[in-house]
């Protein structure tokens, strides 16, 4: 979503993005003239008249599970967004009985918070597991 019109979206998709992604952009490119939606989401820069790089993960109940906002010159990390979605999906599937520690990615161990785990995370989770 940006402040551009749907007509500009079409031109950008047809003339540039479709040369990067076969078949063009696979999701709707939304138009937010005047930054009305961006203002509600707190990412519209009124001075510049454009939206900043806000990214919101919304679950099937319409609840915001996470967001990230960057200034324009720095691009996002799509892999990190995917990792977060996978983590939120795992937590949801476990009905909150599991949690994903720092550095978790699919296949890595999860934590099962409860009285037995208090003060004993150091036994099952090592600092190196936060990196890689």
């Amino acid at each position, binding site marked *: *979503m*940006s*402040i*551009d*019109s*749907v*007509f*500009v*979206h*079409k*031109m*950008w*998709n047809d003339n*540039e993005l479709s040369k990067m992604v076969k078949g*063009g952009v696979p*999701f*709707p*490119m*939304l*138009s*937010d*003239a*005047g930054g*009305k*939606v*961006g*203002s*509600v*989401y*707190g*990412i519209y820069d009124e001075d*510049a008249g*454009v*939206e*900043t*790089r*806000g*990214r*919101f*993960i*919304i*679950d*099937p*109940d*319409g*609840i*915001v*599970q*996470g*967001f990230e906002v960057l200034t*324009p*010159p*720095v*691009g*996002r990390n799509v892999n990190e*967004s995917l990792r977060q*979605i996978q983590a*939120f*999906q795992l937590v949801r599937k476990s009905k909150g009985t599991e949690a994903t520690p720092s550095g978790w990615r699919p296949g890595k161990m999860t934590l099962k918070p409860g009285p037995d785990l208090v003060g004993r995370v150091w036994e099952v989770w090592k600092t190196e597991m936060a990196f890689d």
Partner: protein
Amino acid sequence: MPDEIKAGCARPTGGPVGESKKETPYQEESITKETAAMIKVGRKAPDFTAPAYFQGKFINIQLSEYLGKWVVLCFYPGDFTFV
């Protein structure tokens, strides 16, 4: 499901759904605005409608039509802006 929009000369626009803006005295406006702009994790994502370009068509999107699915909502500064 999303309605298709006829491409006319007027630029189609959308906006937040529900909660119409109340008239507030000028001084309070900035405070009200900032409060409204607070998004919190664990809270409902504000619903909105927006025109969109999708696979050769102009359509209308409403966020609440995606209930039951995971949604990634991305904002960016503008088309053709490099990053």
